[in-house]
């Protein structure tokens, strides 16, 4: 596959076991180009990555373009209604086939020499075929070795070897996706709102860490609290350290959550509203799940969780972390639409999404500036294991978190760095374990 190029999965000149420790990691991991190349190979190629949701391509011929690491791919629904992930690169000379964000096609025709591929990626025809050996008829677009899905969430693994999907997602990943989808009375979400991109001059890993950091809110988002003092984060995130019952959870496998359920003080706090204003929604949930079930769902709301490495379940938003370069990341977000609810509720979710996420929103730009300030501070660092400086402290709460040996879950205070450690422990196993 790689021709004569050294395979970054095998050239292990960087000592990740030394640079990633339980309570600290080295700053060069955010900035060094070789680290980034290793990550693309060992995480984004060799492990599972979120690609998209089936509801984005409802009809045969519908497609959206995405990236798996830096690899451009097409998520497309075929004539057989199956959803596939195909390389967005002609099998002839490599021209990008789809250069828009989304579209609908009967097939994929390359603009260079008009090679035409069916929706399943199989070559249908080429002009002037006599010049080719017979093998051209067997040609297909490249594709990930494995594609799997849960509740319409499509994940892919580029390389043939690696953990099976069930092991990657684990019971916790299943539970997190279920908790989001179960907020629909018919158990289905729909991504209908389009995606907004936000480019940040920082490393992609800061976004796993920032999304699930329960310690920073009062400081980074101080201006939001000034401008919008009734935010739902007041109780669940900001409550006094001693009394806030919200939790930071490390599920293993790199997945983690800021679990606000115990911190909420009213149903629907996560939606900034109350039952009286969404009566038809409560009734629809009660018909589907019973009164008790509906009550629980309205209290708990959606998860605030990271599915390793690139999918943030940001309550009623999805965010995809797209690594571009060591110091550049694109965050793409969309609002989660619920099937089986009235349009007003989905519009409310969309408005909240605009307020929270994206380059002009009230929350994430302040995280972006913070991440860019970190990146400036890491830019010159080299990955030297014995370095006496440049270490990042991730020890908060390490003494007080509970470890459940049967599930291998670690549970800390919502403000503890339990979630950071969840990321780095799995990162270390993928980066050093090869």
């Amino acid at each position, binding site marked *: 596959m790689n021709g004569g190029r050294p395979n970054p999965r095998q050239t292990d000149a960087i000592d990740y076991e030394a640079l990633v420790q339980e309570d600290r990691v080295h700053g060069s991991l955010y900035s060094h180009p070789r680290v980034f190349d290793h990550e693309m190979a060992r995480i984004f190629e060799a492990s599972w990555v979120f690609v998209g949701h089936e509801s984005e391509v409802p009809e045969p011929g519908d497609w959206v373009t995405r990236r798996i690491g830096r690899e451009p791919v097409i998520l497309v629904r075929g004539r057989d209604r199956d959803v596939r992930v195909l390389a967005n690169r002609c099998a002839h000379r490599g021209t990008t086939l789809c250069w828009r964000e989304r579209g609908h096609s009967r097939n994929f025709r390359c603009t260079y020499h008009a090679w035409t591929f069916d929706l399943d990626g199989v070559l249908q025809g080429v002009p002037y075929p006599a010049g080719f050996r017979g093998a051209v008829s067997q040609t297909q677009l490249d594709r990930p070795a494995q594609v799997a899905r849960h509740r319409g969430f499509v994940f892919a693994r580029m390389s043939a070897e690696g953990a099976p999907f069930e092991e990657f997602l684990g019971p916790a990943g299943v539970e997190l996706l279920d908790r989001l989808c179960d907020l629909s009375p018919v158990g289905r979400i729909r991504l209908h709102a389009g995606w907004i991109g*936000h*480019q940040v001059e920082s490393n992609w890993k800061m976004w796993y860490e920032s999304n699930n950091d329960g310690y920073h809110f009062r400081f980074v988002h101080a201006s939001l609290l*000034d401008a919008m003092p009734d935010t739902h984060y007041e109780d669940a995130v900001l409550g006094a350290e001693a009394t806030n019952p919200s939790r930071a959870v490390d599920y293993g496998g790199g997945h983690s959550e800021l679990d606000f359920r115990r911190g909420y003080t009213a149903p629907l706090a996560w939606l900034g509203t109350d039952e009286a204003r969404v009566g038809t929604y409560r009734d629809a949930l009660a018909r589907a799940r019973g009164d008790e079930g509906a009550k629980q769902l309205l209290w708990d709301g959606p998860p605030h969780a990271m599915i390793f490495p690139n999918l943030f379940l940001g309550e009623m938003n999805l965010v995809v972390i797209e690594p571009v370069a060591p110091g550049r990341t694109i965050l793409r977000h969309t609002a989660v639409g619920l099937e089986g609810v009235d349009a007003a509720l989905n519009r409310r979710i*969309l408005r909240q999404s*605009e307020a929270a996420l994206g380059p*002009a929103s*009230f929350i994430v730009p302040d995280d972006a500036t913070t991440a860019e300030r970190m*990146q400036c501070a890491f830019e010159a660092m080299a990955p030297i294991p014995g370095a006496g400086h440049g270490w990042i402290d991730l020890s908060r709460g390490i003494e007080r978190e509970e470890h459940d040996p049967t599930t291998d879950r670690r549970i800390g205070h919502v403000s503890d760095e339990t979630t950071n450690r969840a990321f780095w422990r799995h990162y270390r196993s993928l980066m050093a374990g090869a």
Partner: protein
Amino acid sequence: MKARACDADLYREVEAFLFREARLADEGRYAEWEVLVTDDVHYWVPKGRADYDPGARLSYINDNRTRLATRIRQLTSGRRHAQTPPSPMRRVISNVEVERAEGSTDEYDVGANFVLYELAVQASSALRVWAGRASYRLRRVDGELRIAAKTVELVNDDALPNLTFLL
């Protein structure tokens, strides 16, 4: 079309209004800027062209008066890190077109191109260029021009850096 054409005095008045609005935005004089909008203002920065229902799809900005007030409160809180310190910036406005709004005696449809240079001094000090066309619905209120709607179609699209000032 003729009935909607505007005379030279109105054109100059609108142009002066746009220049003043631009200067207040460039200099972060938000309290003075906020006076220029009506209570039913809609401030919209769509993703791409303004050819869709902003209630049905995400936009970069889709502010009614309440949300615009929140945006300005956040900017003036002194703790908006994404604009601390504020980006030095200057915009150039051109290609101004003014028409009387159809069926109205006190409203005008206005369009203007802009190019804006921003120095993002909050972290890396990158020089960023923003370009696009702003379309306005201006209304005369007690003799003064006010912004009843402003829609900004950016040339920049797909993955913008922080956009935490007013376009």
